[in-house]
């Protein structure tokens, strides 16, 4: 009866030590987030404002996108509009080709991940170098991110050490994180200096000024745009916000919620190219967003600012890891975005939720993540992805619970199940017995107890 998620999670849980570390690590990040939130009396007010700003902005996106693009063009940027992933990849490749780019350095962007940009460009002969350390590690390893903010969290320092020995020629057996970070720094420094173009994502686009705002701790977005002659910024439509007053609200929350820091080290505003570079290109990407806004139950997923706090707090994510989800974004927000993208393909994730609603309690922009997952579950039958075994169980249960006679008979007889020898009942054929022992049925059911007391 396992779902795609629960089956994948079994693999993750095989390494008990690591699974425990993963859980504890993210709980520690959640605790850091709490310390930050409790340190500001206005935290809940900020969440209210953030949610209201996003609700307003994403329901007036046509106005703000137009303002943003107009302003960016006035600033001297070249603005492109991509309706889907394919068009986005073609546009980026077109720009790179026009500038005869052989090597592209890029900072972290979930959007380029969403569009499958790296493999596309590589097929067309362009070398793409990820420059966020975590992204670089998984790129060298040939893997996908397992968390949106901490992409290489599924690897320990020995994994990284061995990888760097092989790929970057680091000292054998030296797996000290400080040393390994320095090795990556030297290697990436060379990439920054020799790249022909730099690409960044965008945490925010500012309609009033045309700024692309990128938040990093490493400074890799700034390094990616400081030496190459060309900067391309990729931004999802929903990332545009009205002005600096709104940005102040989100800047204060993004990092506090995501990693428990008071700010990222760098909050960079890119308005146009450096004086010694070619004009900056901005690619606005739709890829489903203009449709999702019309979904009456799920449009608010577009309020997400990708801080990662929902996955850090999620008891299921913490205990199953990013690779247990079929969508490239894991955790509560990933479950919802995956279902918006393709419910047939990603229904296996909606079971990865205890409905504890911790995600929507911490979400800085108050996306109703848990409620949305609950609503997706109600629709599985429509999508044709409901589990037949569970459907049958639900049907039988509603029959039993719907009839007083059958219910009473059932509870009166249930204790006979206790005499079945344990190996027969706590076995693989009984899905309930997986991970926990079958309960013992009481001789006196609750109804009987209640009547006797009376």
């Amino acid at each position: 009866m396992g779902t795609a998620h629960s089956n994948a999670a079994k693999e993750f849980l095989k390494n008990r030590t690591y699974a425990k570390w993963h859980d504890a690590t993210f709980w520690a990040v959640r605790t850091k987030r709490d310390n930050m939130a409790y340190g500001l009396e206005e935290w809940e007010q900020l969440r209210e404002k953030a949610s209201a700003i996003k609700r307003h902005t994403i329901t007036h996106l046509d106005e703000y996108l137009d303002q943003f693009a107009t302003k960016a063009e006035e600033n001297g940027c070249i603005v492109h509009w991509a309706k889907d992933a394919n068009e986005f990849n073609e546009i980026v490749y077109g720009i790179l080709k026009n500038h005869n780019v052989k090597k592209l350095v890029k900072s972290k962007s979930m959007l380029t991940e969403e569009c499958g940009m790296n493999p596309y460009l590589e097929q067309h002969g362009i070398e793409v170098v990820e420059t966020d350390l975590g992204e670089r590690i998984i790129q060298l390893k040939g893997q996908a991110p397992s968390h949106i903010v901490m992409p290489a969290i599924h690897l320990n320092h020995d994994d990284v050490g061995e990888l760097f020995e092989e790929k970057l020629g680091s000292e054998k057996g030296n797996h000290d994180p400080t040393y390994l970070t320095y090795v990556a720094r030297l290697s990436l420094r060379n990439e920054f200096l020799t790249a022909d173009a730099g690409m960044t994502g965008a945490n925010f686009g500012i309609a009033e000024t045309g700024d692309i705002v990128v938040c990093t701790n490493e400074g890799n977005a700034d390094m990616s745009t400081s030496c190459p002659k060309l900067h391309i910024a990729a931004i999802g439509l929903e990332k545009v916000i009205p002005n600096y007053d709104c940005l102040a609200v989100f800047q204060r929350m993004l990092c506090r919620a995501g990693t428990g820091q008071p700010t990222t080290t760098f909050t960079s505003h890119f308005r146009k190219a450096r004086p010694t570079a070619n004009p900056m290109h901005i690619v606005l990407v739709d890829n489903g967003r203009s449709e999702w806004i019309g979904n009456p139950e799920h449009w608010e997923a577009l309020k997400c600012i990708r801080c990662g706090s929902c996955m850090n707090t999620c008891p299921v994510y913490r205990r199953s890891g990013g690779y247990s989800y079929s969508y490239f974004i894991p955790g509560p927000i990933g479950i919802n975005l995956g279902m918006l993208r393709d419910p047939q393909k990603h229904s296996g994730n909606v079971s990865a939720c205890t409905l504890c609603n911790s995600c929507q309690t911490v979400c800085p922009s108050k996306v109703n993540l848990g409620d949305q997952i609950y609503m997706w579950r109600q629709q599985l039958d429509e999508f044709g992805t409901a589990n037949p075994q569970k459907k049958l169980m639900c049907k039988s249960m509603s029959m039993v619970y719907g009839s007083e006679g059958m219910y009473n008979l059932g509870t009166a007889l249930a204790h006979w199940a206790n005499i079945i020898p344990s190996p027969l009942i706590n076995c693989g054929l009984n899905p309930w017995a997986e991970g926990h022992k079958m309960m013992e049925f009481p001789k006196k059911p609750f109804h009987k107890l209640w009547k006797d007391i009376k």
Partner: protein
Amino acid sequence: MSNKEDILKKYRANVREKFDMPDLSDIKAITYPTPLLQFIKMTEMVGGQAIEVHPGRDINVLIKELFPDAKEIASNLPEITIATRNPDTVGRARDLNGTDIGIIRGAFGVAENACIWVPQTMKEKAVCFISENLVILLPKSQIVNNMHEAYKRIEFDKEYNGYGTFISGPSKTADIAQVLVMGAQAARSATVLLMPE
């Protein structure tokens, strides 16, 4: 290829209920009795170093004392006389690689998170990131409480009006096993010199 109008048309057809912009003027944002003290505390918390410079102190001497081994020093600030490189006159941005200390000016600091607003005021902004150690000169009277106040006053440079950044401490990462390491891709140390009036 589709264009702007196609995407906006599709969006307009799908968007349902419209919501109003909230009033942001009533946000009760944190303030501090002495913003400067909070700024110094936060600078240390994010891994930086803040030093109050006394009137009459020669900052060139001070910087030399702080980094006795530094050879290549990059700056375009007129008061910096120890610079060996100038980000305004280097041939290419990459020529700034190998800089031991980059010295730049910050416009104002933010007490709540140690951010310093650094508008681009040099031809090659690489100096702010490529240097091994970053020194930021900041007038100590220019500290605001929080980011709401900060975003009310940020300005870009008139000449280099394409870029500005908030910097809070040195470049850092915890991408390897969640161990915090200073000096990921940009400066490995950040020193704020709090300048007198």
